[in-house]
């Protein structure tokens, strides 16, 4: 019975980080700052939540699937953000600076 509470705690932590990622995506001034805020925080929230859901299942194939999914998200989420941000920089989107850059 304590295992389900550990699971609930992990999911609450993951929910917090996912909400922080969403707020960063809405409020940051630039593409690069948005990608920075979103990729790292969202990855951490995803791994925490998937670990919590894995504890909610009993040991067996579903837990193994959730572990595979967590490892996959841990690898692919920063990779995808890196690829998009790099293509944006190759296309000539300038990073926002504090002096005179137009935010949004």
């Amino acid at each position, binding site marked *: 019975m304590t*295992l*389900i509470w550990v*699971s*609930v705690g992990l*999911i*609450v932590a*993951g*929910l917090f980080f*996912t*909400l922080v*990622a*969403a*707020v960063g*995506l*809405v409020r940051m001034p630039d*593409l690069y700052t*948005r*990608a920075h805020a*979103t*990729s790292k925080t*969202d990855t951490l*929230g*995803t791994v925490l*939540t*998937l670990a919590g*859901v894995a*504890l*909610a*299942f*009993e040991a067996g*194939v*579903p837990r193994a*699937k*959730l572990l*595979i*999914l967590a490892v*996959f*998200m841990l690898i*692919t*989420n920063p*990779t*995808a*953000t890196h*690829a*998009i*941000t*790099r*293509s*944006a920089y*190759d*296309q000539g*989107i300038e990073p926002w600076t504090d002096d005179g850059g137009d935010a*949004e």
Partner: protein
Amino acid sequence: MTLASQGGFETLFLGFVAAFVLASTLTLYRVARGPTPHDRVIAVNATGTTTVLVLALVAAAFDQPGFLDVAIVYALLNFLVSIAISKFTVERGGVL
């Protein structure tokens, strides 16, 4: 029989699902608003990540391990879309 589908934890997990859906609604704001296409792609990527989490939570709450396969395929497609769009925009030069 998952631990989450018994003893009242099902409602709690569905509440978590509602909170994650709220977070993905916030990212949809950036999808609609984002000035550059890359903003939209990053926001769609975040939305898809949250969708994977919602699928996993629903699988635990309703005791349906088959939803986990859907979540894995959704994560694969999400990654593939991001990589494909980034390659496409670099090679075709601002089509999207």
